[in-house]
């Protein structure tokens, strides 16, 4: 479980997150949605500790993460996996080296054990034959899958995904969504996904938090979202012509 309690974050005097409190349960895919510039990426980066919150607290289970120092955070960070928007694979390393890096740095496993784990993770994301490829040689979908493999290699308890579908075609997006959702269930991970892809919301969103102008505007499930009586949320959800037609059908 991850909990944000009354968090406020400002940049250059501009308040981006305005007193947000939210709780994300383990074993389910939690989605943060909102328009571009609404503050969802800042929220995700605050949750993961890449931005320090100005006020409020962030809890990982019962541990107050936001008050921990660098060394103590390190212990928690080993339980965290993150998939960045662009993949963020190390350019100078192959796919296998990227996935193996956390094992190299934080475990005492033998080379065989590490490679076995790398193979398992790459197989899990259907990248069996990409061990020796560099990130520049991968397609967008392969980069995302390699990033997922790296994120899960240490058996994380918490998984953060920053717009995992951006730049992908609809079919590949569904594959990535399903993969994240399956992994969440398989390992009972607390997964938080930052997205504005409504398809992801309807496919895998178990808990959805809508951020509007830095505020938590609405939260609920994917079933609730279609019937919510909230103008800003409806404007966002039914922005596309297809969604409007779907609502008409409903």
């Amino acid at each position: 479980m991850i909990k944000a309690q009354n968090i406020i974050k400002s940049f250059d005097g501009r308040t981006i997150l305005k007193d947000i409190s939210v709780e994300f349960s383990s074993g389910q895919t939690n989605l943060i949605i909102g328009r571009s510039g609404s503050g969802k990426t800042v929220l995700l980066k605050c949750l993961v500790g890449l931005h320090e919150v100005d006020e409020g607290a962030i809890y990982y289970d019962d541990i107050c993460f936001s008050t921990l120092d660098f060394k103590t955070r390190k212990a928690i960070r080993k339980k965290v996996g993150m998939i960045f928007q662009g993949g963020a694979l190390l350019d100078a390393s192959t796919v296998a080296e990227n996935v193996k890096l956390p094992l190299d740095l934080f475990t005492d496993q033998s080379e065989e054990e590490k490679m076995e784990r790398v193979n398992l993770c790459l197989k899990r994301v259907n990248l069996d034959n990409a061990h020796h490829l560099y990130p520049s040689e991968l397609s967008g979908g392969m980069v995302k899958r390699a990033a997922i493999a790296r994120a899960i290699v240490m058996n994380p308890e918490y998984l953060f995904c920053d717009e995992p579908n951006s730049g992908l075609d609809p079919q590949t997006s569904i594959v990535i969504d399903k993969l994240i959702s399956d992994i969440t269930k398989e390992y009972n991970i607390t997964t938080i996904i930052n997205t504005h892809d409504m398809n992801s919301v309807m496919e895998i969103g178990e808990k959805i938090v809508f951020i509007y102008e830095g505020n938590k505007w609405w939260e609920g499930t994917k079933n609730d979202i279609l019937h919510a009586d909230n103008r800003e949320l409806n404007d966002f959800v039914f922005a596309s012509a297809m969604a409007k037609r779907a609502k008409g059908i409903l």
Partner: protein
Amino acid sequence: MQKVFSRPEKMRIYYTRIMYEMEALGLNSIGLTAIISIFIGAAVTLQMAISLESPFIPKYMIGYATREVMILEFSSTVVALILAGKVGSNIASEIGTMRITEQIDALEIMGVNSASYLILPKIVATVFFFPFLAIFSMLIGIAGGYMISVTTGIMNPSEYIDGLQYCFYMSEISYALVKMVFFAFIVTSISAYCGYYAKGNSLEVGKASTQAVVTSSIVIMICNLILTQLLRT
């Protein structure tokens, strides 16, 4: 800086990275150092031969002057300035690109001390390898002077060699190497700093790279003066 010099997570990984950086930043700079050194060594010898043309100045002074220029200033200070351009911009743009493409954030999320993981191996590699480049530059530069004296006949090669041996003190080599160690640290740490704190987009990475070269060069010149005063007086 404290983050950079904090205890590495796994020494073996750092050792591998140091070896990689030695090749990327050190071995790959040998060609450039050799080309510049040989031509400067030859040019200095030619200049000295033209300038010291006097019956009162013995010919071997040309070899002596070439040696002094190459050892005391060129192989350390000028080579460091050249490496600030090559290695410094490389480090700043590499780390800067990693910053804007969130690769550094990815390392931090994993619990890796990104500053130490990325910068420390580069500092260790350059501080260890740059003095070898300085020695290499001295040898090649002096060889360049010898070649020009042989090919143009401006002086007898044996006089050039006499000049090289005239009033030679090993402390001059030590002085040059000590300077190079300082310069290696300056180039790497300033360039890494500029890259690590780059923000925004590719334009900013370009700016960080330029800033790294300019700042390193200025700091090298200032340190050169200070070290010369401290070590040679």
